[in-house]
């Protein structure tokens, strides 16, 4: 009888079970970690998208404001305001200008400064200078 009971009993293979549980544990953790990372990626992606949108919005606002400033300070707009009397031109005599630094002649850097009677490279003698900046 005893012998029969022993025969009917299966031994629990603790080692095998432990190995399997560890393996499944690893798989579960890896899976969860994968999902966590994926969610993080989505979350970061969404943040990137909203930052991009914000940046774009700011850029667009900046461009719109720059265009507005350009329009309001354009030659035509200023002339109109001058004609209407909102602004006026005041003559500043050369003697009333305190120069912190001495005037730079145009030949040095090619910058046209019409307020100075320096030799404008465009209109001076020799080959006309074409790279003129404001």
């Amino acid at each position, binding site marked *: 009888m005893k012998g029969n009971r022993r025969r009917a009993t299966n031994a629990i293979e603790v080692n095998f079970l432990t190995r399997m549980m560890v393996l499944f544990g690893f798989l579960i953790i890896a899976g969860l970690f994968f999902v966590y990372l994926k969610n993080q990626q989505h979350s970061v992606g969404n943040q990137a998208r909203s930052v991009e949108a914000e940046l774009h919005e700011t850029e667009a606002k900046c461009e719109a404001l720059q265009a507005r400033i350009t329009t309001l300070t354009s030659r035509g707009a200023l002339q109109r305001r001058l004609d209407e009397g909102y602004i006026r031109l005041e003559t500043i005599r050369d003697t009333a200008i305190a120069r912190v630094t001495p005037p730079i002649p145009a030949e040095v850097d090619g910058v046209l400064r019409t307020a100075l*009677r320096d030799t404008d490279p465009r209109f001076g003698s020799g080959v006309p200078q*074409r790279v003129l900046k404001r």
Partner: protein
Amino acid sequence: MTGRIGVLCALLVLVFTGFAWRLINLQVLQHDYFSAIAAEKHLIKKVIPARRGRILDRNGEELAVNVPIRTITADGTRIQDPAKLATLAAPFLGMDGGELRAKLTSAFSSKKAYMIVCKGVSEENTQNLLRAMDAAKLRGLYPEEASERNYPNGEMLCHVLGFADRGGHGIDGIEKIFDAELSGHEGFRWIERDRKGREIVLYRGQEQLPEQGTDIRLTIDMGLQAIVEKEVDEAWKTYHPAGASAILADPMTGEILAMACRPNYDPNHFNQAQPDQMRNRAITDMYEPGSTFKIVVASAALNEGVVDEKTRIFCENGLFSYGGKTIKDHHKAGDMSVEEILQFSSNIGSAKMSLRMKDADYYGYVRRFGFGEKTGIPLHGEISGMVNPPGRWDMLTKTRMAFGQSVAVTPIQMVMAMSSIANGGRLMKPRLVISRGEGSSENEPDLVREVITPKTAKFVSASLEKVVSAEGTAPQAKVEGYTVAGKTGTAQKLNPHGGYLDGRFIVSFAGYLPAENPKLMGLVIVDDAKIGSSANYGGLVAAPVFSKIGAKAARYLDLPAEEVRVTAQSGNTGGATASVR
């Protein structure tokens, strides 16, 4: 028992074989088809628009800029409630609620994935709309990037700049000619959208950044342009002409510094402009130049050696019968030198100089001065004027061409021809662009050809100085502090039905300063000024405008004033036949 198990197994094998086949069919055989359907549903090629390049003047002043705007599109497949969405969005889009509802309902019912709902929505309104949609948990409207062209100076320089349409395509002027450079190339990005239509950043696909449009830097100086515009405006208001044009150029390099025409228009509202306002008369209109053309015959005769500085030509005391017609001079004189012929604008003297030359030689000089061919200015619509070859001349053509009849020129041709006298005989190609994009430059003046010798040019130039003396035809072109050389032109307007129109003139003055070392070349043309015939002369209408422009431009550029040589010549204003004075 075994048999039943066998059947069951066979059935299971069959079922799973079917599943496997279906799986292979879906995943392998029809992979491309289903991928395309999935891509169509979720993948979108998002266009990244390129920024249109700016147009700047020579000093970097902005002449054409971009204002960001948004185009709102609807995706019918994502709209849930078109009526509710329309009610919410209409105020932000500035649209009528009913109209918007109809559009959205149409997109919704046809499941149209892309429909443009509204263009030109400001950035602020767009952001407010998106926030309102988020709050109301509605979807189906999406903004697209766009921009609108803005011309900060309005009407100023409109004929040179031209304009771009709402789609950002250049239609006229610099905007059209350099449309490819200004436009750049748009980029793209493949994106996937979630259920709400938002981009899933994680699944961003292939991306190509846009190639931004290049900035175009013109030779125009807005300081000079403003001066020219103001004076042309004043002439426009004073004389109420049919048209007026003025050009300022650098005679040494052919650079166009200013160009203005009337009537004009505001390129910001180009759809309100009439075709007549949009015409750049400086390049698209031809006119009989009248006496300004005498520089051609004088230069040609001197250069060919048929006359010299000392040659005196008998001017028939003001009446010369030739070819059955009479040529008249205002200044009745006997013998005149070439210098005096120009100073007093003698038609007879000019005609006689032309008769001393062979037809082919004379025609050759007219062509070498650039008449009868396009100058090549980078603007749309330039014409070549009209110069008939000797084979088509009648007996009178040659003599009439000598004083600017039977020939038609454009203002820009006249500027370049006169510049060649100023710069020692070199015909330059007009330049309007300094650079196209960072690092590029088109600095080299473009010489077309040597027309006359420097000696001839110097002599003609000296003669043209006398034109602006107290005894010449254009004392009113004088600019205080500078010697001016120039020539007036007064030509009767052509009658479209043949002959000339009585009492209607196109008057002009072309000149440069300082005469000895020219820095500025200017041309002023007033077409059909509403003023009595006795006062409608180039020297009385156009020359004063030139003088004002010259004085202000010289001051603006701070040109050193020079000692004015006193010239004492006798005579009166030229002019003779019915049409040329």
